[in-house]
Structures are given as structure tokens and as C-alpha cells.
């Protein structure tokens, strides 16, 4: 792996930092406070190509790399964890499975509008009784000759209310276990498909997390994504890629908390000097910074392998595990360094701390990442 960033990456960082600073940071606290989906930001990002970075130009995308995509999620999350996951779920969980498994017609139909941000994407795997044990799918898709009839529900679905395109995982043959699970593309407005209750959350409060309900929802035959019975492995591969996005989100949140803490400890004076002058501050900041940089290298290396087309699922699991735990640790300490002020909404570290927690849970809990890593080690 080349540790130097490329010229394109350098130019991209210049653009994304200017964009996040001017367009996202100023509204981050507000969308959190109001639990408001940042639809205006999605529009702006769509125009600049941020909603379709790794999509080839022939499908209306930007022809970018996964590395640049992960840098985008990092930089966005550095100022707003909510906007980070909007981009990550859209790109990794909806665009990527279509790109990697879709027919040419599916790619032509969905990718251009998803890449331009005109359409937002979502992914529905989790159900009330199928969380970590995702194979316990209850949602059922019945083969009715010229169409599929979908029944069941999904919970905790990111981007739900605002999405136009949903990748939905469902059982097609109960007798086959995980080999009886398939993936489908469901469009917003399909009769029988409704959005249920919206969750009230600890963090990433601007992102819409809702229930998806399917009641005799008829979907066209051609909306099967990938092969029949291959939906479980499609979902697992999708999550492998998604973990790079979530690792980048965690990394961004941690970096954002570092930025705030370095600034604050140099300004805040107690006992006649800046608290940055205390050795406890210095040593803890050193440890925090080291972990953030280690997370970054894990994220970069997983994205690098994905771009090279070599296996990266263990790398993605390590990146997500380490970056998520680092984000929790760094944001916890960031509040500690801010003292009482850090516990209030006057300072962004309070929001960052709340946003960090989810990175240890979704797209595979930290325990799941440990299973992936050790499973590979002990196989």
C-alpha cells in the first residue's frame, strides 16, 4: 500500500473540507436538535457527485475510488455524524449491491438517479427477531408467477422515510435456510409498501431510522437482485463493504472530537495556565491521536484492498471494530477535557459522543466484528 495520498485525493480533500466547513458544519447542531433529515445537504452533495463517488461514469457516477469515498464519509462525519451515515448507507448499502449484483437494466435504471442524489437509497435486512442473527428472516417473498408478493417488516432502516430505492432481504424458500434467502429492489410508492414508526434515538438524530412494512406488496419479477437464494451472501458482502463506510464515519467522529479538544485545551485556563499544559492532558491527547491515526490506516488499507479487488472483509471488520471503539473512547475523553461545558450542547463534543455509540452497533456489532476476525484466524 502506498501511504502517500494521490493527487486526486489531495484535490478531493481540499474540496470536501471546504464543502463540509461551509455547508454541513453550520447546520450540524440544528439537525441533531430538531431530529431533521438534512435533505438540502443531500441535494448539494448530489450536484457535486458526493452521492455516487464509486459508481462508474457509464452509469452516471463519478468514476471515483472506494478510497475517495471513504475519505468523503470521514470528512463529512468529522463535522456531522448524521450526514456521514446518510451518505454511507446510500452508497455502501444500496448503490454497491446494485453495482455489484445488478443486471445491466437494473444498473441503468437505478444508478444514474442514485448517483446524482435525485434518489436516495436504503437497505433493509434487520427485523425484530433477526438482528445479529440475520438469517432468522421472517419477511417472505412469494413467487406468484409474473411477480413477487412481499409480506413482513423490517426495523431500524436508515434513510427510510426519504429513500426511493430499497434493497430488501426476504425469505423465498423457508426449507433452504440461508440458501432460501433472496434480495429485491423495492421502489418507494409500490402498493402495499409503507413506512412505519420513526425511532427516537440517542445520536445521529438527523438520520431517519424507521420501520418498513410490506403487506401483499407486489413487486415486478425483474426486481430480484442477484440470483435466487443468494440474498444472504449478497447481504453479508454488502455489509463487508458497508463496514468501510461506518469505520470511516467512526474515524471522522473521532477526528472531529480531536479537533475540538485540541482547540479547547489550548484555550481553557485553570490554575493560571491552559489545561493543555498539564501532562495528563498531553499524554492522553497523545494516546487519542495515535488511536485515531491507527484507525485511519486501517480504514485506508481496507478501502485500498477493495479498490484492488482483493479480499478485504477481515480488514473492513478490523477497521470498523477499532475505529468504532476509538470513536467511543476519544469522544468520552473529549467531554472529560471540556469538563461541565462538554456535557452541555454549547459544545459539539456532546453530540459527537452521542453519535459515536451507534458505530459499535450497526452493520455488525463490535462482537460480530470480533467473530469475523477470529473466525478467519481460527479457520
Amino acid at each position, binding site marked *: 500500500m502506498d501511504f502517500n495520498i494521490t493527487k486526486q485525493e489531495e484535490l478531493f480533500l481540499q474540496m470536501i473540507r471546504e464543502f463540509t466547513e461551509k455547508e454541513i458544519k453550520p447546520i450540524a447542531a440544528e439537525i441533531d436538535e430538531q431530529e431533521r433529515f438534512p435533505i438540502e445537504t443531500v441535494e448539494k452533495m448530489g450536484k457535486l457527485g458526493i452521492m455516487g463517488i464509486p459508481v462508474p461514469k457509464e452509469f452516471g457516477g*463519478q*468514476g471515483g475510488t472506494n478510497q475517495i469515498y471513504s475519505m468523503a464519509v470521514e470528512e463529512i462525519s468529522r463535522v456531522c455524524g448524521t450526514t456521514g451515515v446518510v451518505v454511507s448507507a446510500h452508497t455502501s448499502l444500496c448503490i454497491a449491491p446494485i453495482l455489484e449484483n445488478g443486471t445491466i437494466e437494473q444498473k441503468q435504471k437505478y444508478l444514474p438517479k442514485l448517483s446524482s442524489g435525485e434518489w436516495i437509497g436504503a437497505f433493509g435486512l434487520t427485523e425484530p427477531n433477526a438482528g445479529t442473527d440475520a438469517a432468522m428472516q421472517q419477511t417472505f417473498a412469494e413467487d406468484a408467477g409474473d411477480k413477487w408478493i412481499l409480506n413482513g417488516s423490517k426495523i431500524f432502516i436508515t434513510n427510510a422515510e426519504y429513500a426511493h430505492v430499497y434493497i430488501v432481504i426476504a425469505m423465498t424458500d423457508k426449507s433452504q435456510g440461508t440458501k432460501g434467502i433472496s434480495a429485491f429492489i423495492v421502489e418507494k410508492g409500490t402498493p402495499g409498501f409503507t413506512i412505519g414508526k420513526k425511532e427516537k434515538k440517542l445520536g445521529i438524530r438527523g438520520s431517519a431510522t424507521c420501520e418498513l412494512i410490506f403487506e401483499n406488496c407486489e413487486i415486478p419479477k425483474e426486481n430480484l437482485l442477484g440470483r435466487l437464494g443468494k440474498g444472504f451472501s449478497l447481504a453479508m458482502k454488502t455489509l463487508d463493504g458497508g463496514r468501510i463506510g461506518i469505520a470511516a464515519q467512526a474515524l471522522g467522529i473521532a477526528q472531529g472530537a480531536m479537533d475540538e479538544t485540541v482547540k479547547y485545551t489550548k484555550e481553557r485556563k485553570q490554575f493560571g495556565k491552559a489545561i493543555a499544559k498539564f501532562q495528563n492532558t498531553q499524554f492522553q491527547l497523545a494516546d487519542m491521536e495515535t488511536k485515531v491515526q491507527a484507525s485511519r490506516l486501517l480504514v485506508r488499507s481496507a478501502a485500498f484492498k477493495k479498490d484492488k479487488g482483493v479480499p478485504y472483509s477481515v480488514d473492513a471488520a478490523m477497521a470498523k471494530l477499532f475505529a468504532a471503539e476509538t470513536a467511543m473512547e476519544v469522544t468520552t475523553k473529549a467531554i472529560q477535557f471540556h469538563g461541565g461545558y462538554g456535557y452541555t450542547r454549547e459544545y459539539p463534543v456532546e453530540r459527537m459522543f452521542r453519535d459515536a455509540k451507534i458505530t459499535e452497533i450497526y452493520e455488525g456489532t463490535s462482537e460480530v466484528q470480533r467473530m469475523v476476525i477470529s473466525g478467519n484466524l481460527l479457520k
Partner: protein
Amino acid sequence: MKIVVCIKQVPDTTEVKLDPVTGTLIRDGVPSIMNPDDKSGLELALELKDKFNAEVTVLTMGPMQAEAILREAFAMGVDRAILLTDRRFAGADTLATSNALAGAIKTLEYDLVIAGRQAIDGDTAQVGPQIAEHLDIPQVSYLQNLEYDGNKTFTIKKQTEDGYQIVEVDSPCLVTVLSTANNPRYMTVKGIMEAYDKEVEIWSADKIDVDEAKLGLKGSPTKVKKAFTKGVKSAGEVYEVDTEEAIGIIISKLTEKFII
């Protein structure tokens, strides 16, 4: 329509420090950016490209590193980029700079030449107007807004010290643009991915239409006699008092100085 935009790479700071001994700018460790007024000039050109299909060329004189702002310009959407770089250009003052830029523009087709009002490092605001003189075309400086009739005439809102003027001018002409004229667009991801596949044309002094004696140090009549950083103002007085008392102190100080 064909547009040439002159853009300059400058250190990213409004407070450029000077070396007290040599009187030259200290550029080490300061990141370089596209001069803000020039970026607005570029945005103006790109808006004309969007509306009237104009062809936009960016031109800069500088060392090889100045290529960075040309790549940025590609990622924003320009069609062509030229870097004037040659040891014979080195040590140029504003006159030699404008001679070199005008010499390059003379070899191009153009209906409109755009420069920034001034560069944040040199701050003279001379280069744009000088280029217009060398090219012998009309100029409108301090542009706030421009409208084009799609044919030959520009209607320009030009800022003055105490207001503005509306002037009409026919192409070919030169304008100098203020950074407040517009909000420059961001680079797009696709533009960034393609920026390094495009060609930045590197031109030496031989490629341009100007007498070599007018270039670089030789062509620079300006001699910097002394350059210095402004002395620090006195520290002022600090009062650690509550708001009420502070207001009283401020009012009495302002009255004392006949400000209020």
C-alpha cells in the same frame, strides 16, 4: 465566445510575513491557494460557459507548483489551462508580469479577458489594467456583476468607493473581478477524477508574443527599497470588571476621544 481568465497562486493568508532582511515574502509552510478574486473571476467565466457555451482558458505565470491551481480549475470545469513558466519570467514586477500574460493572451483568441481585482500577496491591483493596456482593449475594473446580451455587449455593475456605476462595453474587453461578485462553485468529484488526465500546457518565453527585454527582472522597473511589517499597535488597556462597569468605562473613553 472565448474567455481567458488570469489566475494567480498565492499563499493562503491575508497577513503575508516579510523577511525583514531581504524584504521578500516568506512562503515556507504557508499553503498555496487560488487567489480569491481570481476564483470569482473564474466562476464568472464558468457561468458564461453554462449559459452561452463559452470556451474557458485559464492562464497563470508562476513556478511549476502553480500547476495545482490549474488542476483545480479543470476540476471546476475549464476547457484549457496554460502555465507560463520559464527562468526568464523570474523576478517580475507587475509590469513584467502583465507583459508576459498579455504576450500569451495575444497568441490566443478571446472575446473577454478576466483578471481578479488584486492578488492577496502583492495587493497592487495593477496587473489586470496593465494587461488591458498592452492588448489595447477597453477595461472595466471592480466588477460586481456582469450581464451578456449573447452577442457583443456586456452590461457591468462596477463598484466605486461610494456606490456603483453601470457601464456597457463591447467585446473584446478586460474586466477585473471582486471576490464578492459571486460564490465560486466547488470542484466536482468527476472533475477531480479527470483533472489529472487533462493536459496543462507548459509555455516558455519563446511561445509568447513579447520582447524578451520586457520580461522577468530585466523588464521590471520597480525596485523594492524597503519592505517591512507594520509595527504592533500598543497593547491597549485591559479591565477585568463586570458588564455594567465595562459599559461605563467604554462610554467615558469614547467621550474622552470625542468619538461619541
